[in-house]
């Protein structure tokens, strides 16, 4: 379904402002943040707040921008293309669970509050066990991106959301450095003090899944652009290597992956903008499965097409592969999402009265 004029304008403006905050043609900021702590810019974070991004999906009555999925994927795609290290998606997930002063601080970018929801490797849906009883949180949360830069965490529990300050003595954070130069945190809560947050909107997780897929799409497109540029400048045997048909065909195969991924993601956004339910879940999973696989194919081949220089850390093309290695399995790898797609699409078809 095509977007109307107003939404097309939103998308255009978001892309433009994204380019101003995170420049896809200059990765010097990204390099400077790699393997440092906390690994991202507070100044950029505040800018994101000023631009209204941190409440992009939040309804206007809650202080958000009330924009749709088409807008969110446009933005995260740009952030992906620029390899922005900020834990934007995790923060979006968290704002959904905040109220009052916490929400305000998170929306303006004054505070970095991240979502802590996952408890097992390769987990998306399903039970969580972390407890929140008498204002105390106990349990363990995994894979919180850039956890060292957070002021607080929005923690999901069966008793509701708890907001825990990063400095709480009952919370210990173990850091795992990641290939992209960032890190993730394993959060162990041992009677940490929590204040109640609010339950996130139902579509919360699927929105994060699709936003991650769109980040990967940004990576795919930027990788392909750079690789095609390289084929147009590198010379061997007295000609540009882009002259070789073997490489032309390879580049076309990668373009095919890029286009399929875009089609899948934009379709999913349209479905999600229409409403919630199994069809929306199936669509987000379909897009993430595609994006995870395509991103690894494209970034891997980009190294190959660059030859020796692609195997150096000095050249930027490797940064895209490293980011894809982190994001492809994050919020569910392709196998998980293929299964999840089949499960929810079957439900959606049954609802429509289609044969299973």
């Amino acid at each position, binding site marked *: 379904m095509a977007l109307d004029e107003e939404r097309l304008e939103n998308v255009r403006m978001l892309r433009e402002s994204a380019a101003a905050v995170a420049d896809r043609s200059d990765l010097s900021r990204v390099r400077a943040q790699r393997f440092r702590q906390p690994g991202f810019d507070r100044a950029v974070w505040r800018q994101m707040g000023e631009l209204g991004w941190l409440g992009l999906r939040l309804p206007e009555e809650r202080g958000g921008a009330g924009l749709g999925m088409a807008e969110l994927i446009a933005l995260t795609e740009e952030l992906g293309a620029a390899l922005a290290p900020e834990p934007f998606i995790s923060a979006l997930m968290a704002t959904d669970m905040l109220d009052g002063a916490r929400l305000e601080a998170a929306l303006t970018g004054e505070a970095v509050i991240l979502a802590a929801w996952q408890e097992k*490797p*390769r987990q998306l849906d399903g039970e969580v066990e972390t407890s929140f009883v008498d204002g105390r949180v106990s349990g363990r949360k*995994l*894979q919180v991106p850039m956890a060292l830069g957070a002021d607080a965490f929005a923690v999901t529990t069966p008793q509701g959301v708890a907001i825990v300050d990063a400095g709480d003595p009952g919370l210990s954070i173990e850091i*795992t*450095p*990641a*290939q*992209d130069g960032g890190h*993730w945190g394993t959060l162990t809560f041992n009677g940490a003090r929590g204040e109640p947050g609010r339950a996130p909107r139902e579509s919360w997780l699927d929105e994060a899944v699709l936003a991650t897929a769109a980040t990967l799409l940004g990576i795919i497109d930027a990788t392909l652009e750079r690789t095609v540029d390289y084929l147009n400048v590198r*010379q*061997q*045997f*007295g000609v540009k290597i882009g002259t*070789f048909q*073997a*490489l032309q065909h390879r580049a076309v195969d990668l373009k095919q992956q890029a286009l399929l991924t875009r089609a899948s993601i934009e379709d999913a956004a349209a479905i999600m903008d229409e409403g919630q339910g199994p069809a929306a879940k199936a669509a987000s999973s379909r897009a993430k499965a595609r994006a995870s696989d395509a991103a*690894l194919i494209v970034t*891997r081949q980009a*190294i*190959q097409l660059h*030859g*020796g220089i*692609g*195997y*150096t*850390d*000095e050249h930027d093309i*490797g940064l895209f*592969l490293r980011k894809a*290695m*982190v*994001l*492809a*399995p*994050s919020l569910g*790898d392709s*196998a998980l999402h293929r299964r999840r797609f089949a499960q929810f699409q079957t439900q959606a078809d049954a609802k429509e009265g289609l044969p299973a």
Partner: protein
Amino acid sequence: MSASRYTLDDYNALGDDDFRALVRDFLKECHPPELRNPVKRLHWDEAKPWYMELSRHGWLAPNWPKQYGGMGLSASKQLIYVEEFENFGAARTPDHGMMLFGPLLIRYGSEEQKAHFLPKILSGEHIWCQGYSEPNAGSDLASLRTQAVLDGDEWVINGQKTWTTLGGDADWIFMLVRTDPAAKKQEGISFLLVPMKSKGVSVKPIVNLDLQDEFSEVFFDDVRVPKANLVGELNKGWSMAKALLGFERIFLGSPRQSAHAFARLKGLAQHYGVWDDPIVRDRYNQLWLDLEDHKALYERFADILRRGETLGADVSLLKLNQSELYQRISEFMLQIAGEDGGRLEPVDGNADLHAPGIFLTARAATIYGGASEVQRNIIAKNVLRLP
């Protein structure tokens, strides 16, 4: 060399099983335990104890003939040697001397050169690196521009090499230089041997994709070496290099890397709790068959060498198949690791479980030693005789 129970006159006289048992015992007894399964490729100072141990028992050069201090192993014995080293997790030592330079010298070197250099490789006195590639001469190697000009009794070298593996560790470089700028590009190239300590040589390490400083740029600024450091005939370096590529390709086509990765696959799947998943098992079995078939292919090529015949252009297929199999295994490992596929450091410091490290390292295998695209060109042209 002080002989030991591992030092035999004729290893090929042993049955395969006996030889395999010998290799296992050797590794158990002689391999320094702290160097087992290194996370990264070792630099010379780290690998030295193991290198010297191999040297002491005469086990350093499985591929060289006995008369030059090698083990003189048959193809099938070399395969067993490789397999057992990989299964054990033996550390790879700097091996350009054994694998590339040794065979070059044995084939094209003068008697004096062989007598001088080969023993020094075996004793660990000389570590060699390979100086072929330049910034503008990669796949198109013949367009190399580093120049050597004869000045009296000395060659004067100017130019730059790049991607030189272990360039910072090496004592010597065997390099291709342009000695006749006027000739057609393949015809003015020669082989020169240059000490890395020479005045005018400078080495700048390059950090690779796996964040290791394994290769380097090497700059030559009026570097002087004696005239006698030329190997083989003047301006015939290209055809020698091409003949040598056969050795390089059979080395890179040996199942070593794939076997190394495959040997870690089951443990990885068990660690991540997916070993009993039928889909994982089927993929594992596929790769297993791929590896066994590759070994069979390798033996065919290794046999050609053993019979003293020259390898044909089809050896490119061996290198192609090995490097791509290695990558497929590494990609499956990454998939198995899930979120840990994005880890920078091994889980529990255990290199066997470091899927992302193996995945990244494997990226290079389809680039060095002739990129896959170039190997396919060679096969299309010289094997299939396509126009």
